[in-house]
């Protein structure tokens, strides 16, 4: 991969607005992450920031899932319908509703998002395979934030 090609990938990432992109060609791999750009989406001046979300950057993804899953248009993104706290399991210590690699059916419960003690079960709208869990359990999520990516069946 040449410097020119890498420049083009950066431009592509900037134009498309994706947070992160990874490209592999001929044994070379490059990953572009636009940290500054994604920060801007989270800073809303003169509006109080969320107490449980003091960090401005999106929550870090587990290492295994840091593969630009939000940039792949063939993947379906499950987004949070509300502001709240993300839980991957019904209670602490219990097995997660789903894990990466699991096949899910439409209507299957993927996680819980808690908002003011209201526990919202988030169901999958499509059938497919879980590619990534984009938020760590116990962390805050914003309205519309991508929480899972699913490869449609």
């Amino acid at each position, binding site marked *: 991969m040449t410097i020119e090609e890498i420049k083009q990938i950066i431009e592509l990432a900037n134009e498309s607005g994706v947070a992160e992109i990874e490209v592999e060609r001929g044994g070379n791999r490059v990953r572009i992450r636009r940290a500054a750009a994604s920060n801007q989406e989270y800073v809303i001046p003169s509006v109080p920031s969320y107490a449980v979300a003091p960090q401005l950057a999106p929550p870090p993804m587990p290492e295994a899932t840091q593969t630009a899953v939000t940039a792949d248009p063939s993947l379906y993104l499950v987004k949070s319908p509300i502001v709240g706290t993300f839980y991957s399991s019904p209670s*602490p210590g219990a097995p997660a509703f789903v894990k990466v690699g699991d096949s899910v059916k439409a209507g299957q419960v993927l996680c819980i998002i808690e908002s003011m003690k209201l526990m919202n079960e988030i169901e999958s709208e499509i059938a497919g395979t879980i590619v990534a869990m984009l938020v760590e359990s116990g962390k805050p999520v914003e309205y519309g934030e991508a929480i899972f990516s699913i490869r449609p069946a």
Partner: protein
Amino acid sequence: MGFDLGEVRRRMPSRALHWHRRMDSTMTEASRLAAEGCASGTAVIADEQTAGIGRHGHSWHSEAGLGLYVSVVLRQKFVDSFPGVTLAVGLAAREAIVEATGVVCDLRWPNDLLIGGRKCAGILLNLESKAIIAGIGINVNHGGFPEQLRELATSLRIAAGREFRREHLLVELLLAMERYTKLIEEEGIKPVLRLFAQASSYVSGMRVRVEQGETALEGVTAGLDESGFLLLRQDNGKLVTVLAGGVRPAS
């Protein structure tokens, strides 16, 4: 004291009521009924819960014959009032307790009911099967609590010095929940936020600590935002919004 379901049925003849002497959790049963498509307002009541559910895996101490343990299935569409409806259920429980017993509780955001800083009722809401399932546990006739709960829990009997009929409390609770769901459907969440601010000493001017996992925040409460989230003014002057977590007075 026994539980006279017949009296509740006489007061609310058209209401679907499922009473159980002993069951794991009213939430589990209400969840099953909701999945089957039961009517809005359907209530599951237990005399004793062997696995009462609190928030996110906590258990709820549910002794036989002493408390009111009920889960109600709500099918109203609270589109714009969501998740503030959780505050309305707390207000409904508070009003029901006043009506049935004369005891006035404080509300700790979002919906714990306290007497003298100790919890006498807890509320949990689940959104599933396109319904909200509201679980309410009220300590009614408990004379005391196990060692580990003694500093945290109280009951209406301990507060008032006498026992109360749980049937009366159930009827008042179901009626109050009807009033609040109607209020939200007609006027949205705004009046609920105003009433909550009046009823709760926690909403403004209280120095609190908010535990959230491994982090904690401290500050003075500064009202509710338009959705019903608690605002907190930190010592550095920054205003932050509390989404969830245990809110406790800070010394």
